[in-house]
């Protein structure tokens, strides 16, 4: 199997004799998961927990980005894309010894699709109004039927941890490499090996590690300090300053794994009902204005100054990290002050004594809101402020705490532009239907439209629906490439940059294969081992 070959290679790279058994891996998660129920995982920490404990039918390999078999040894997708048949592994047991069968898959789907649960993983399956059907063919065969074809549905099963229908422990009975041993509120989650984990190294049951301790730690400085003291074994998602510190110490293993899917974006409020003056709405509605702003931002400076080079200028919704879907033809909007000035002049803006005025004489001044407490983001806002000053535009930076910010961008629409981070969990554009459809609640610049406000939004709607209904990957790619081009052209959202995945680990940790997809360092946790620590 392909994955086995990969693991073999990784194992060869590792120094020393062979993998060692035992030991405890320690690292930090940002917050205590709101719920440990796998269907309700809604944050990075909850998803990490689910990844470590949950068993899934298929797994998206975080390095190759290909689908690999897990609990489903094989599968068939019907030609019309409305049904998937999974052939399950036999002889697999949950952590408490309950045997695993097709019934458990059916039960999992039933829980996941409960309309009152509002499970993010469940919601991503919902395409039409009709429910999803799960048919148990026999003990080891199960068929999932969708009301209408959804392309890329298979990948979504990477987020579906199988629950046990019969175990008295309910969702605490797991199929993944680890199970929860202890939860100390606000402090840590202690995981121990699942004695019944189905994977082996050929002889013994994996994982190599005996235990994983997830320390709950919000403060990144403290996390770094603990890592330096040897209390933690790995760090991921570091900022540039922290990475520089690790590099300069030279004691730990570290890597810049390249651009990740996460990025920083700035979008304009294009909601026609927003409580803004009409002339301001006219500025933002103008493509020339938006493009002018984009061309005035020095993306290279943002990457160099704030991220010390560990970031790439942003192009579109997907970074180059998404190998298949990224549109290679597009390049970042280049810094070009003259182009920006021409675009503004075309719309009747003119510069008088250092300040820009629109055709009606209004001074061009607007604000960008961002969440307080994120230093990198606040710095980016300050840099954009200076960049726009070159056009004679006054940008006011307003930092708000998160709920207040969310209220403005989803409820009151009392904002002009917003600077926020972008997180992609799913590699497939279908995971972003709600973002691109003009009727979507997550359509950032103007959500929940009854009918598309502009022709280009109507075109995006058409393209997105078309790609979702098509089962041919090449055709879908062509359609979504066009979506990326329209967004690049119209610039309702300015993609500023994509951060690189910066990771570090203790030299005692082996078999590391850092990936830019989450969970960056522990995606192959069942094969990681610690050397020289009982």
């Amino acid at each position, binding site marked *: 199997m392909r994955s086995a070959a990969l693991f073999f290679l990784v194992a060869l790279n590792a120094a020393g004799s062979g993998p060692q058994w035992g030991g405890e891996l320690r690292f930090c998660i940002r917050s205590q998961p*709101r*719920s440990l129920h796998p269907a309700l995982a*809604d944050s990075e920490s909850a998803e990490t927990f689910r990844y470590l404990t949950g068993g899934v039918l298929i797994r998206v390999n975080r390095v190759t980005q290909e689908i690999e078999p897990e609990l489903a040894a094989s599968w068939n997708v019907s030609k019309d894309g409305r049904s998937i048949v999974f052939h399950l592994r036999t002889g697999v047991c949950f952590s408490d010894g309950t045997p695993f069968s097709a019934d458990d898959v059916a039960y999992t789907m039933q829980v996941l699709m409960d*309309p009152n649960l*509002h499970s*993010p*993983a469940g*919601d*991503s399956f*919902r395409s039409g109004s009709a429910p999803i059907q799960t048919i148990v063919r026999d003990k080891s065969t199960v068929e999932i039927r969708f009301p209408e074809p959804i392309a890329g549905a298979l990948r979504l099963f990477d987020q579906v941890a199988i629950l046990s229908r019969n175990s008295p422990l309910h969702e605490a009975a797991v199929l993944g490499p680890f199970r929860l041993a202890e939860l*100390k*509120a*606000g*402090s840590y989650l202690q995981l121990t090996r699942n004695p019944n984990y189905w994977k082996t190294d050929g002889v013994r049951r994996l994982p190599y590690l005996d235990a994983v301790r997830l320390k*709950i*730690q*919000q*403060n990144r*400085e*403290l996390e770094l*300090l603990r890592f330096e*003291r040897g209390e933690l074994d790995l760090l991921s998602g570091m900022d540039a300053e922290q990475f520089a510190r690790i590099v300069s110490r030279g004691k730990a293993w570290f890597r810049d794994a390249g651009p990740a899917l996460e990025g920083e974006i700035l979008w304009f409020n294009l909601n026609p009902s927003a409580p803004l003056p009409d002339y301001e709405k006219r500025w933002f509605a103008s493509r020339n204005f938006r493009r002018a702003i984009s061309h005035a931002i020095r993306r290279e400076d943002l990457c160099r100054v704030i991220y010390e080079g560990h970031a790439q200028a942003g192009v579109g919704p997907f970074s180059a990290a998404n190998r298949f879907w990224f549109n290679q033809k597009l390049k970042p909007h280049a810094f070009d002050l003259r182009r920006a000035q021409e675009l503004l002049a075309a719309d009747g803006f003119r510069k008088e004594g250092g300040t820009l005025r629109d055709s009606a004489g209004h001074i061009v001044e607007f604000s960008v809101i961002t969440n307080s407490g994120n230093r990198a983001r606040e710095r980016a806002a300050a840099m954009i402020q200076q960049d726009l000053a070159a056009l004679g535009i006054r940008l006011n930076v307003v930092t*708000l*705490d*998160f*709920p*207040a*910010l*969310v*209220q403005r961008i*989803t*409820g009151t629409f009392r904002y002009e532009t917003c600077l926020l981070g972008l997180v992609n*969990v*799913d590699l497939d554009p279908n*995971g*972003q239907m*709600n*973002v691109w459809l003009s*009727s*979507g*609640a*997550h359509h950032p610049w103007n959500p*929940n439209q009854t009918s598309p406000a502009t022709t280009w939004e109507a075109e995006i709607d058409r393209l997105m629906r078309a790609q979702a209904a098509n089962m041919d990957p090449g055709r879908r790619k062509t359609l979504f490439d066009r979506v990326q081009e329209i967004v690049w052209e119209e610039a309702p959202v300015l993609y500023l940059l994509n951060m690189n995945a910066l990771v570090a680990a203790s030299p005692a940790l082996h078999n590391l294969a850092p990936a830019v997809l989450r969970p960056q360092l522990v995606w192959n946790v069942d094969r990681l081992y610690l050397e020289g620590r009982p």
Partner: protein
Amino acid sequence: MNAHSRLCPRWLASVGKRLAWFAAVLLAGGILGGALVRMAPGFGIDERVLDARLTNNSVAELSKVPAEGSNLAIYYWHYLGGLLRGDLGNSISLGRPVRALLAERLGVSLRSLAAGLAMAWVLAFSVALLLEIHRRALWDRALSLAAGVLLCIPAALLALGCLQLGGSPALALAAILFPRFFKYVHSLARNAASAPHVFAAYAFGERGVRIAGLHVVAPALPELLALAGVSVSLAVGATIPVEALCDSPGVGQLVWQAALARDLPVIVNVTLLVTAVTAAANLAADVGRTLREVGS
């Protein structure tokens, strides 16, 4: 002796009155705290609505203002009813009973609070007393200066410093509280030690340690009681930011997270708790003052 017997009934009456006020302040604290959360921007906002995987239906469901916030007065009335039964309500953001959340975290907070208070108290007390017993002008000046400088460092910076030194929240609390206590205890000890009867005790050749205990500390006990009350409320107030900064899994951190999530039930409960502690501390200070007046 005569004075005592006459004081007793008046005392009882004033204690009753004070308790009634105490309860009124507590009730007002709860409703005002609730009103502040309810008024705050972003109340009823669930961050999960930003999850792009959710359908429009789910987003609409999550965007509903929680039942607790629709009518504050009714919520509060129900809450008080629950309170009598020992039910503190459910946290909105964490979806669990507030009582369980507090129980999980109270131990951690109480430990750091007690340790921080004890450290600050013992240090302030012993340093002030030693200075009084030995009376070395140079030491006095050096220690007063050190405490003064500590007083001039922003508390958040102190907490960060303690954090970087690998210290616990208790250490940060002690560093914040010590200079405040020391300043007070030092002047108290200075006043107490310059009392004529202390001088007389020296003239009778009594030992320094016994003088400190019986002639300096004992007469200052009412004042110390008052200070103890104030110090507890000071420490409780400092615990929240310190725990938030030190990432210590205590009630302070819970409150900080609840504040960021506009978690009305958690905030109302903790406001009540803090109000109770503050009011009790001031009550203790008042009793201390009364004792002193009765004493002299």
